[in-house]
């Protein structure tokens, strides 16, 4: 029905697409370490060595873990398997609160202590009016 040239061009495009998808997939797979924006406390636990580079740690702020001592804000980031202590001085975003997502940028002192230079709040995918939230909490 279609000419020979049309068929050849069709297979050419398919080949180009498959090649591109495979190569991009391979590149991203091998760069996985660097594509992730932050590491979880469990990832930190499995690190072979702690280096001096700036990294980001993310997870939930553990409930009842925020404390302020000598202008230092201390809290615990947890991924419900492992946790890490974080110390920070400076302003925090409005959405930073206990039981909510957080990403801390800074330096690892050791595998259980993190000195943050910047705090970002991570918003989750849930959107609802305050009344609905209150009703959900009552349940």
């Amino acid at each position, binding site marked *: 029905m279609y000419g020979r040239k049309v068929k050849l061009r069709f297979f050419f*495009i398919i080949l180009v697409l498959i090649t591109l998808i495979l190569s991009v997939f391979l590149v991203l797979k091998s760069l996985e370490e660097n*594509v992730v*924006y932050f590491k979880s406390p469990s990832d930190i636990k499995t690190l072979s060595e702690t280096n001096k580079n700036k990294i980001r740690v993310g997870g939930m702020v553990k409930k009842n873990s925020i404390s302020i001592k000598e202008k230092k804000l201390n809290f615990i980031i947890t991924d419900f398997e492992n946790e890490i202590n974080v110390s920070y001085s400076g302003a925090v975003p409005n959405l930073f609160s206990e039981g*909510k997502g957080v990403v801390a940028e800074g330096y690892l002192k050791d595998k259980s202590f993190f000195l943050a230079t910047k705090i970002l709040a991570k*918003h989750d995918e849930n959107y609802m*009016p305050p009344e609905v939230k209150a009703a959900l909490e009552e349940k």
Partner: protein
Amino acid sequence: MFKLLEPNKIFSVTSKAPKYVLFLFIVVLSVGLTEALILSPEDYKQSHAVRIMYVHVPAAWITLGIFSSITFLSILGYIFKIKNFFLIAKSLAPSGFVFNIIALVTGSIWGKPTWGTWWAWDARITSMLILALFYLMYLLAWRIYENKEQLYKITSIITILGIINIPIIKYSVDWWNTLHQPASINILSKSSIHSSMLFPLFIMTAAFALFSLLIFLMKYNTELIKIKNKGLDRL
């Protein structure tokens, strides 16, 4: 059937369409903005900042949709040598680019009060920036090259390279840890956006789609007039 593809026949429809589309766009946009800015509730956590979502999310959807359409049209145009498809793709690109920029800028404005930063080099945001660069390359290619055959090839190559980025944008939030939150609306599962917030979101999406259609028709009409002026009787 192919009689319909004569520039004059197409033009007789597309030259009249913009005023109706414009009217519909204004109506839908007014309803959408009233819903999004006044009638919809504030969010339990981010309060009024949630209203940025009603511009951000539709703009992102439309820009992804337009780039996919441009690629689809370019590939079909290349395989079957249909010049009209390239012109449609060319006319779609400007509004896609504009919505890409809108998505990036509104995301940044939302990010400052919620995340605490204007910009983060996470996978979702970076891949969205790469899409904007592909749009820019595509639009520039149409301005740089004169030779039609060369144009069709180069723009096709740009779209094929760019299309690989689309699934990366879509799934970046599921594959990797990102600062950007995962998708709230899934076809298969229940949406994690409350229904009172979904309605303005969909109305705004319809409004933006109409705006893209309007810009597309205006651009496409210009292309058809150019063809007519050159005295060519078919595409």
